């Protein structure tokens, strides 16, 4: 996922002008300050997972992984988002969120945009309507109609019927989460479309368990770079943290609540010597299948093959495939 922070464009400024006509006390923010994604509030955790390859987690050297290995991935999917606080009305944040997602297909070793589903870019205005009493429903409709952007209320009650705090930072967090969610939806729609066509294996930047169709598709492979939740405990944790370059863990099953269960394993892409323990460590997710070891070895070889060319200068280059970086650069250009 790409988070960009360029200033407001002409369309954003036009949207702010529309709101200013209806909110006299609206105060635009110079430059439209971009907001970093909120730091996760949940603490990092270890979670147990069902080992499905053998009886215990162990390190497995991926056979046949070399510089000459051919990758079987035919495309890459990633999303991007941009969150800008463009104004505030007596402290209440007015946010414009831009989300985008694209599938980039590899043809003759070069990346091009998937022709069947064009890349998607969506924009929305995130307003805490409850705390903007002067803004009527008619005003909201008018702004939505004229800007052609969706209006998202960030002050709706949660499933318990409680309304959010009026604290501007809390409302901003809610807006950011809403943008996150919007981006994930875009990514999921593209992933579903890809899997429905059953084309070549798709490298998805992130997990695949959000939607059932993707989680069960043999052509969707998720590669997760962040490890706030580690699916190993005890001795298994030490084994995973000690994986050498080109080694993977045993396959385990990840079955989060409200999501589909998938098979997963850890894979070390680069030698961690001199780096932290997470250096070059990714977790791979695939759909449930038979002959897991063969599948894990095959996919691991593909993921290892994607370590060149380097995705520098991105700071996550130790784990990021070049195809994902290409997606992010593409989305940066169009959104």
């Amino acid at each position, binding site marked *: 996922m790409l988070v960009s922070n360029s200033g407001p464009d002409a369309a954003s400024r036009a949207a702010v002008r529309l709101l200013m006509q209806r909110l006299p006390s609206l105060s635009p923010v110079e430059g439209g300050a971009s907001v970093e994604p909120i730091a996760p509030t949940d603490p990092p955790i270890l979670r147990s997972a069902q080992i499905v390859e053998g009886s215990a987690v162990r390190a497995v050297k991926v056979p046949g992984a070399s*510089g*000459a290995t051919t990758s079987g*991935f035919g495309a890459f999917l990633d999303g991007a988002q941009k969150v800008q606080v463009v104004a505030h009305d007596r402290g209440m944040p007015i946010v414009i969120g831009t989300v985008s997602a694209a599938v980039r297909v590899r043809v003759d070793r070069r*990346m091009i945009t998937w022709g069947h589903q064009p890349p998607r870019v969506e924009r929305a205005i995130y307003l805490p309507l409850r705390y903007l009493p002067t803004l009527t429903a008619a005003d909201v409709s008018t702004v939505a109609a004229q800007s052609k952007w969706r209006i998202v209320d960030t002050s709706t009650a949660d499933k318990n019927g409680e309304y959010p705090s009026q604290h501007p930072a809390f409302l901003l967090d809610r807006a950011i989460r809403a943008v996150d969610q919007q981006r994930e939806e875009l990514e999921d729609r593209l992933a579903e479309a890809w899997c429905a066509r059953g084309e070549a294996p798709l490298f998805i930047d992130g997990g695949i368990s959000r939607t059932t169709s993707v989680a069960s598709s043999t052509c969707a492979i998720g590669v997760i770079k962040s490890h706030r939740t580690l699916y190993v405990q005890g001795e298994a944790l030490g084994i995973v943290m000690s994986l050498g370059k080109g080694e993977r863990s045993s396959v385990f099953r990840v079955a989060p609540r409200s999501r589909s269960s998938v098979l997963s394993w850890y894979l070390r892409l680069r030698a961690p010597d001199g780096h932290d323990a997470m250096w070059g460590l990714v977790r791979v997710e695939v759909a449930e299948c038979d002959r897991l070891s063969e599948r894990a070895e095959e996919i691991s070889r593909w993921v290892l093959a994607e370590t060149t060319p*380097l995705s*520098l200068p991105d700071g996550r280059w130790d784990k990021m495939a070049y195809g994902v*970086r290409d997606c992010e650069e593409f989305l940066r250009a169009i959104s």
Partner: protein
Amino acid sequence: MSEALGRVVATERKPNTPHEFHFWTAIDSPVGIGTIVRVDGAQPMDGQIPHIYGIVVEGFSYTDLQSPMHDVLGHDGLPTMAGYASTERAEIRLYTAAVLRQIPEEPLQPVPMGQVFLAEEADVQVALRMDSYLREGANTGIPVGVYRAGGTDAVIYLDADFLLGPEAAHLNITGVSGLATKTSAVEFLLASLFKHFPRDKGSIAAVCFNVKGPDLCYLDKPGEVEKTDEVLYEKLGVEAKPFEGVEYFAPYTAKGLVLNTFRNNEALLDNVTPLTWGLREVLQFAEVLLNKDDVDAKADALIDFIKENVVDKEFRDPVLTKTHRVQSFADLDAWFRDVLQGMEKKDGESWRTHHVATIRKVRNRLSNISTRCAGLVTDSGAVSDLPFGSFTDRTVYVVDVANLEEDAQDLIFARIVSKLREHLERRDLGVKHLVVFVDELNKYAPGDGADTYVRKMLLDIAERGRYLGLVLFSAQQFRSQVHRRVVGNSGTALFGRMDADELSTPGYAVLSPATRTKLATLEKGQLMIRHPHFTQPIFVRFPRPAVMQGREGAERYPQASEISLEAAILRALRPLDPTITLPWVQEITALYSDEEVIRARNATLLARPDNVKAYFTAQFRKIIPAQAAPRPMAGSIKSAPENDPYGF
């Protein structure tokens, strides 16, 4: 309409201007340095979509790689590993194009964003403003080559009004030696001129000075034309055949027996005319041959006196033993001898204000001319010259001076060009437009060095020739070393493959580094053209001339070696009368000196009489054959009487 092949891009660091813009293309697009493109603006201006035409002058390629080190790290320092990467890095082909033309032309604005298309033939005509002279009614286009890029073949035309005048004129061509590009280009361009120069603009001919090698010696002989060149000829509307009207002129060798040209093979002599001049012709251009240090004011005055009062006049003087009529170098030498002997007799130091030392010096220098220019200058005064006054349309007159001494070359060049100029001024040359082709301009019109008569003449043509219809086509290896006013006055400039040192001189600074690189690697048959209508140089291909190349001609028609006098006479006269045989020549010439025989040959060749044998024979003075004196009748000796006392 073809598909777009690129998009205009501009950034704050690399903005577009009214004269330059940038665009990117797909990796495999057929764009390269010299490609002409068209930009269609996205926004109409005054209801008209702007079209901008440009030529690619620079290209850039880069990837998203931030540091070369990243690539090294990515492949573990092993270049061979790079080939296994699953994905090629994102790569850009970014080009810079110089604007050739904007439509509408006003207001002149920076090039807008828009799609970029490969220029088609019609676009090329508009881009290079050729539409102004290819339209009905103007029709002054002279094909010079074919522009080729990405499947587009477009004929590039020069404007005759800017090539031969009166708007601009002259053509200069530069290129390294040995590729035959310069000579070939001129040969093809002359063929194109003869074919396409509008008849309503008058007649045209060319005088080519062959200053080195045999390249211009076989213009009337067919050469090999390859298939690819045939296609070019067809496209250019020029017939792939040798010149129909070619006349050659060359002086004799020093011995005077054979012509001093690569084209003196007996099979080629039918259109070769000897070039011989006498005293009168040479004296007009004495300053070409006489060194300034030799000829001071006093000597100059004496030469003027001779020109005005002695040559071709009955000259009498008390100091002379007889009346002189000086018509040849031999006559002049006799006159000098008489003057000096007369002065010696009188023990005088000066004659008619001319000091004896000056007279001796001038005699020495003038007499020396016939030695230095032997073969060209005749002692006898016989003149065989170019057909000034009767030049014919679409004819090439080649003057072969390749094997001559530098002095003789200078004399020939100076006199012929002066005569051409005189006749063009009087409008009686026979043609209205005349192209003079001179190679080796580095030698004849150098930027530095002495201000020679030849250089002055070239400057004069370059600066004033176009008003007379006298057009200079010049060539050299190093344009930077030619006099600036000569190349500066050339409206059209052609460039073949260039030497890197030459390209590093300031004159080429206006070209982009990529264009200079392309110039340094041009193939045979490729040229870069600058023409007054073109705002940027254009690259074209032209076909190999359909005439026999110099090397092939020299092999097929070997040069005649020095032969006996009789054989030389036979070879010279037989084209006029095929019945002449060697025994006949030997019989006629047996009693005469070599000089007399050569003089008779020259006179016959000049007159080209109907009865060659009779005319040739008539040139010799009558010599009564020696007859044996009749033996006097021996009288009988009377025997003395036996008793004669006085008898012995």
